């Protein structure tokens, strides 16, 4: 009887590990920036190259930083959701590795849900934010801390069930 215990235990252990593996999405990486201050930057605005924007400009407000690009197909997909979210909350676009003309055309064609977009032409700010796939959406609280990060297009369900509750909680909380 004893001789079966070890192989059975090994099999059970391996099975448990593999079973757990079925539920893991290796494409989704945990952000290291959660609960950290949003990295500072100063960038030109997309529609007003003379004016600058930095995260400090949003101090005191709960806001979203949405990383987008005109070449990004999934950004088109989430665009209607971002547009309806923009009625609830200030959304700043981070126009990532784009051409200014392309980006402006994209907004003219599909509509501009953003308070403003910061123009990150060479993607340096994207690196500071750990962006590895566009679109990505950061929820930033009144003190400028990143509280949530969504990777990939925001679906209506994501917006209703995850983002809006997080935003509501941050607005109510005494931060």
């Amino acid at each position, binding site marked *: 009887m004893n001789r079966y215990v070890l192989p059975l235990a090994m099999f059970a252990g391996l099975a448990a590990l593999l079973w757990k593996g079925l539920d893991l999405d*290796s*494409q989704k*990486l*945990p*952000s*290291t*920036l959660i609960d950290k201050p949003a990295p500072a930057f100063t960038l030109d605005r997309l529609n007003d190259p003379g004016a600058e924007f930095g995260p400090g400009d949003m101090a005191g407000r709960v806001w979203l930083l949405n990383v987008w690009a005109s070449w990004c197909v999934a950004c088109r997909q989430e665009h209607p959701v971002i547009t309806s979210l923009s009625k609830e909350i200030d959304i700043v676009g981070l126009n990532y*590795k784009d051409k200014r003309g392309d980006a402006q055309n994209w907004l003219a064609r599909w509509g501009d849900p953003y308070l403003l977009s910061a123009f990150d032409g*060479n*993607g340096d700010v*994207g*690196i*500071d*934010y*750990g962006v*590895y*796939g566009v679109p990505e959406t950061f929820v930033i609280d009144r003190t400028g801390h990143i509280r949530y990060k969504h990777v990939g297009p925001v679906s209506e369900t994501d917006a209703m069930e995850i983002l809006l509750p997080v935003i509501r909680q941050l607005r109510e909380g005494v931060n």
Partner: protein
Amino acid sequence: MAAWFCVALPAAAKVEVVGFADPAMEALYQQMIRELRCLVCQNQNLADSNADLAKDLRRKTRELVEDGKSRSEVVDYMVSRYGEFVLYRPRFTAATAFLWMSPLVLSLILIWWVLRWRRRATAAPTGYSEDDLKRARALLEESGDNGDRQPPGSAG
């Protein structure tokens, strides 16, 4: 000249050629882009990947190395932005201790298991009593066989 082309072309086909004044920096840069993972195509390192993000991260790595940053400073820079996953050679932390130690632990378990198995095999009781063995020896002597068994038909 021809030989130089043969060596340089395969590398230049994918990764931008970067010139470092300092060979130590060049070596560190080459080491880093092999140790850092491209997060878009997750099973390639920065050196192997053609993804845009990999190009940007190679550029960042080059800038950091040119600024005189050490290996651990480059690693810290990347990990603070992309997490431990960016490292192909994970650091030794509480979370990775099992990963690093498991080969050693498994080897020790295997050695212990083999030793125990061998000790058991040699000390295993045969199931014959001392009297049985005595009688067996007597029978062997009687038949003129001293115990050195030989295959039938062989000379000796």
